[in-house]
Every structure is written in structure tokens, then in C-alpha cells.
């Protein structure tokens, strides 16, 4: 009896193995994924272009060693991270342009400034942490002190509908 069951099991297994390994998925899945990928690339590109533009200006400003003192106030300043929480998940090109304008303004003042947009995917290692809002991106800026960094953060467009947390970067 056991042998018969074993034999029949093999027959069932072979029947399953004859099933086609590939089936055509509905076309809307590829279309939806492509749209999503395209939107994401567009938003990332706009963000990067805006930041890159500001860095070019910053490099230009840094080269103007003969600029009036008012133009180069922060070269000896501290570095701060501006952490952008919450706000619109996908602000699109307009939002990226605003962030870029904010960064360019800092660069015009002679401050170094850089930034990155973060992916929505987050992975956690170590102890669990519950961020009240998703971290969307960050800027690294120069400012004289925390008070000035906070003032610059208040003027960041993200502070309108999101939260900008200022943290000084510890340097040895």
C-alpha cells in the first residue's frame, strides 16, 4: 500500500512538473511599473540637477577669493545636516526647483552645500526604531553656529509642509 502511494505521489509530481513554467502576465503590470520608474527617475534627476547647479555656483563662489567679505562669510563655519522629514512624498519638478533655489542662495553666500534625496525604501539593522515621519532627504550646509543653521532651515521650502531637523556634524 505504501509503495502504491509512493508511486501515485510520483505520478502527481510529474503531472505538476508538466505545467508550463511561464505564463504571460497582464500588460498593465509592466506599464504601471514603467510609469512608476519613469516618475521616480524624473524626480531624482530634477533634484540632482538642482543640487548640481547649486554646487557649480558654490564652486564658482569659492573661487572668488577676492569677493567682498559679505560674500564669503561661512568658509570657517561648522557643518550641519538638515534632515528633511515628512512633507510631500513626491514633490515633483517644482519642488526640486524650489530646493535648488534655496541651495543656490546658500551657495551665493559662499557656503558649501550638498544634498541628496533618499529612496522610500528603508532597511533597518539593530534595534527597532520608529520614525514618526519618513526621512525624505538631507542637505549638508555650512553655518556659523546652530542658530544660523536653524535660521537657514526655516527658510528651506521643505519647512512649509514638512519638518527640517538641524543636527550639527561632529568633526574631530
Amino acid at each position, binding site marked *: 500500500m505504501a509503495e502504491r*502511494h509512493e508511486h501515485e505521489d510520483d505520478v502527481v509530481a510529474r503531472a*505538476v*512538473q508538466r505545467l508550463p*513554467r511561464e505564463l504571460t502576465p497582464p500588460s498593465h503590470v509592466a506599464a504601471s511599473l514603467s510609469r512608476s*520608474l519613469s516618475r521616480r527617475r524624473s524626480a531624482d534627476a530634477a533634484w540632482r540637477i538642482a543640487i548640481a547647479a547649486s554646487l557649480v555656483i558654490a564652486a564658482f563662489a569659492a573661487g572668488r577669493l577676492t569677493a567682498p567679505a559679505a560674500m564669503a562669510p561661512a568658509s570657517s563655519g561648522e557643518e550641519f545636516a538638515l534632515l528633511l522629514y515628512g512633507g510631500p512624498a513626491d514633490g515633483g519638478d517644482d519642488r526640486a526647483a524650489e530646493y535648488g533655489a534655496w541651495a543656490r542662495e546658500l551657495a551665493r553666500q559662499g557656503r558649501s552645500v550638498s544634498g541628496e534625496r533618499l529612496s522610500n525604501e528603508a532597511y533597518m539593522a539593530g534595534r527597532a526604531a520608529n520614525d514618526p515621519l519618513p526621512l525624505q532627504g538631507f542637505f549638508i550646509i555650512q553655518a556659523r553656529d546652530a542658530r544660523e543653521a536653524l535660521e537657514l532651515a526655516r527658510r528651506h521650502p521643505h519647512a512649509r509642509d514638512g519638518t527640517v531637523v538641524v543636527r550639527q556634524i561632529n568633526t574631530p
Partner: protein
Amino acid sequence: MPPTDTDLLDAFKREGTERAFLALYDRHAPAMYALALRMMGGHEADAADVLQDAWTRVLPRVSAFRGESSLRTWLCGFVVNCCRERFRGPVLETIEATPEDAAPRTQRSFDNNMDVERGLASLPPGARAVIILHDLEGYTHREIAAALGIDEGTSKSQLSRGRAALRRRLDPRALEVRQ
């Protein structure tokens, strides 16, 4: 010569374009969809959701692929995870939850694959998943246990009971026809 999986993956990592994505998708989505459709008991809308969800998770992680398994196996792992999350109730409803005599006995042939597909779809999700992963996808019991969050003993027993249930759902005489 068609590009290898590594070629396609490198192109996507390098370019990140829609075209590079579609080249990867076109090659592997049919196998992922077939797996999703069977795991979800033949529900096409659920399988499409699983496929979309799996790729949404895959794309930000392509750099994490280390080539320790084939790309297809790695991709199908995302499908299995997405399916597993969708199983309602206990993670794996076991075969005992289905009355043994619930299957229709009028089926006279499973000469076409649709009969087997229907038989699989009628099984509880846990036994169905084990049969699909073992008999169709070639997973070992250890791999099934890891993928489904069960122990190897459960995988073995579900395979055995699942096959028996599937056998009951199909006409034994028709099974012999294919010998």
C-alpha cells in the same frame, strides 16, 4: 547571442532606464507571474498585484543581488514573500483544514494541464505552496522551510498530504493513462 542575466542586470544598474527595466522584466516576469498565479490559487488580479509588488521591491535592491543563486531564483523569492504576506489567517493553512472528501470525484481526465491547475488551486494555501515550490520550482525542503517560515518536517508532511489530496481531486485512472 542574447544578453545574459548579468548583462541585463548591469545595464539596469548602469542606466536605470525604462528600456533596461523592460528587458529584465520581459525575460523573468512570465515565470514570476506563473509562480504568483499558482501560489494565489489561480486568482489573476491577486497574482498581478503580487507581480507588481515583487518588482517594486526588487528594483531598489538590484545592487544587493550577489549571484549566489540564479537571478530567476532570486526574483522568485520576492514573489514567494509577497504571496506569503497575502495568505490570510495562519501563515500556512494546513491540509487538515480541508475535508478529505471535499474534492469532486466526477473528474475523469486530467489530460490537459487545466485539471492539474484547478486541483492545485483547490488545495489550502500551505500545501499548495509546498507542492509548487517542491515539485515545480525544485526547492528543497530546507529552502521551502526558509521561504515559508515553517520547519522542514511541516514542509515534508504538507507535500505528502498535499499530493494525496491532489491525487484525490484527479481521477486515478487518468493519472495512469500518462504512464
